């Protein structure tokens, strides 16, 4: 087998170490630069300071765009989670011809390039009054986020042991009680991690935002996109660092949820 000898194994580890470095270092390298006392993106740093974070907080467009992003993300997540969870339950119960076609439609937003949704929405959300509107953006983001919820909830439902529910029924629990006490705790991690995905999708989305937002609806990614296009300064890297911290936080939460879900299903120690 490849990498079975000591030398082979060492080579494999070295190679993979480099790939890991390629994956992670670029993200980490911006963190120290955002604390630079100078304006230039060089090492060694001339000194450490929080001045770029202060500018971020003082600068009104950043604050406004952060607010917009949070609001849009919350609404999109709510929509995507409710619709995606319902659909996951529905598809798990239903057997009918054309199910895979319906599945294909529901998962298509993950695959169809975002630019296609963006241009479609640009033309056809207009008559609904949904362009230059946070609601329109939230709806488009829910379209992008719902498949993630569908997939994660379906996965937990697929792993749900039906005998557990039947046992609850057998012990005399009415359906809603069985749902609340047995089904819900088991699928909850799936729902929450689907919701996390949906939120991250919205919070990071810039293409639809470029098409659907006016100056008053500017979101954080759009603000960053335009900032990067003009000039990358430590202020943008400060915003980026905050987003990296958020990513780490969400990743940890998602990982904890995964473990909890595996434990509840009796899959892991």
């Amino acid at each position, binding site marked *: 087998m490849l990498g079975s000898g000591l030398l082979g194994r060492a080579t494999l580890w070295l190679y993979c170490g480099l790939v890991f470095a390629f994956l992670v270092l670029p993200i980490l390298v911006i963190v120290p630069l955002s604390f630079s006392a100078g*304006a*230039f*993106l060089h090492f060694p740093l001339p000194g450490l300071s929080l001045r770029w974070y202060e500018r971020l907080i003082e600068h009104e*467009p950043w604050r406004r765009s952060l607010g917009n992003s*949070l*609001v*849009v993300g*919350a*609404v999109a*997540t*709510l929509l995507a989670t409710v619709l995606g969870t319902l659909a996951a339950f529905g598809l798990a119960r239903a057997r009918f011809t054309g199910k895979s076609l319906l599945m294909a439609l529901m998962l298509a937003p993950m695959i169809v390039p975002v630019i296609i949704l963006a241009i479609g929405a640009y033309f056809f959300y*207009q008559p609904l*009054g949904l362009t*230059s*509107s*946070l*609601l329109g953006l*939230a709806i488009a983001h829910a379209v992008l986020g719902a498949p993630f919820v569908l997939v994660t909830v379906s996965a937990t439902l697929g792993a749900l042991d039906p005998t557990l529910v039947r046992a609850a029924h057998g012990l005399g629990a009415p359906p809603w009680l069985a749902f609340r006490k047995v089904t819900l705790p088991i699928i909850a991690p799936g729902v929450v991690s689907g919701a996390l995905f949906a939120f991250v999708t919205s919070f990071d989305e810039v293409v639809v935002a470029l098409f659907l937002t*006016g*100056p*008053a609806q500017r979101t954080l990614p759009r603000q960053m996109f*335009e900032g990067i*296009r*003009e*000039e*990358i300064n430590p202020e943008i890297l400060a915003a980026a660092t905050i987003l990296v911290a958020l990513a780490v936080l969400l990743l940890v939460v998602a990982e904890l949820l995964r473990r909890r879900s595996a434990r509840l299903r009796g899959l892991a120690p």
Partner: protein
Amino acid sequence: MRSTRTLAAVAAAALLSFALPAAARDLTITSWGGAYQGAQRELYFGPFQKETGIKLVEDTWDGGIGVLRTKAQGTPVWDVVQVETDELVLGCEEGILEPLDWAALGGKDKFLPAAVHECGVGAIVWATVLAYDGNKFPNGGPSSWADFFDTQKFPGKRALRKGPRQALEFATMAQGVPPAKVYEALRAPGGVDKAFAKLDSIKKDLIFWEAGAQPPQLLASGEVVMTSAYNGRITAANRQDKRNFKIAWNAGFVYQIDSWVILKNSPKKAEAFKLVHYLTRPENQAKLPAIIPYGPTHVDGGKLVPAEFAVEIPSSPQNLPYGLFFDAAFWVENVEKLTERFNAWAVQK
């Protein structure tokens, strides 16, 4: 459980704010970003909001009649925009700009003749210049557009604004045509082809910028050895970031007048007029060169600029002899055809 409820409450509040009709939005001002818009924010936008109580939202753009057309669809999300002359003329003709009340602005004779138009009033006099980092050329930098196109004498990447405007003028100057004869040469049969051929000769060393903030950034990061740039951005980088960027005024430059316009069907027309009036007051215009050296268009504004800053604006007596005034008629006639040609040329390897 409580967090779900909070989430629901936030969503409900957000949905309420979603329901606001488009007309209830704030007045929007669209300018050219970066250090320039920063100066405008400090000198004009902030004080205007304080003085009038009208709330302003800013946006940024990099020009182009097509962008103006998309923004004018339906009820526009933009109100007041700073445009270049060809955009002003074309936009006015196509009915996407609002005619101005010149009496309220103090009369047409109060402004430079080129700053007066049915749909727009001059904002600034500015120039596109040849710029480089003085620290990188201890033995003297490029001093002509021919140098810009000479990759033997000055190796390295260079940058131009994306689009035909100014680029064709510079490519023509690089062939040895004096500024005063440039448009004559471009109008002559084959003139445009020659300019494109000149651009093509350094294509592999060319990168293109769109936003005015990019050229100083490209110079600062060493990405290019020289670039075309808006003159004010170069001076601003020197003043604010202690750079040693140089402008080769004597290489020849294209200077022109930008105008303030109001989009037709703007739901904030009255406020927009008020803002345009505020922006073009001579005492306000005269404050700009101290931060970023763009010249006033109001005749009285020109007189109010302190002498120490006046030398750095394009129309100062030292600089003006090397300047070429942007030929709006040529560009109104050709901008779309040539933009298409330029883009098709630029995207090919």
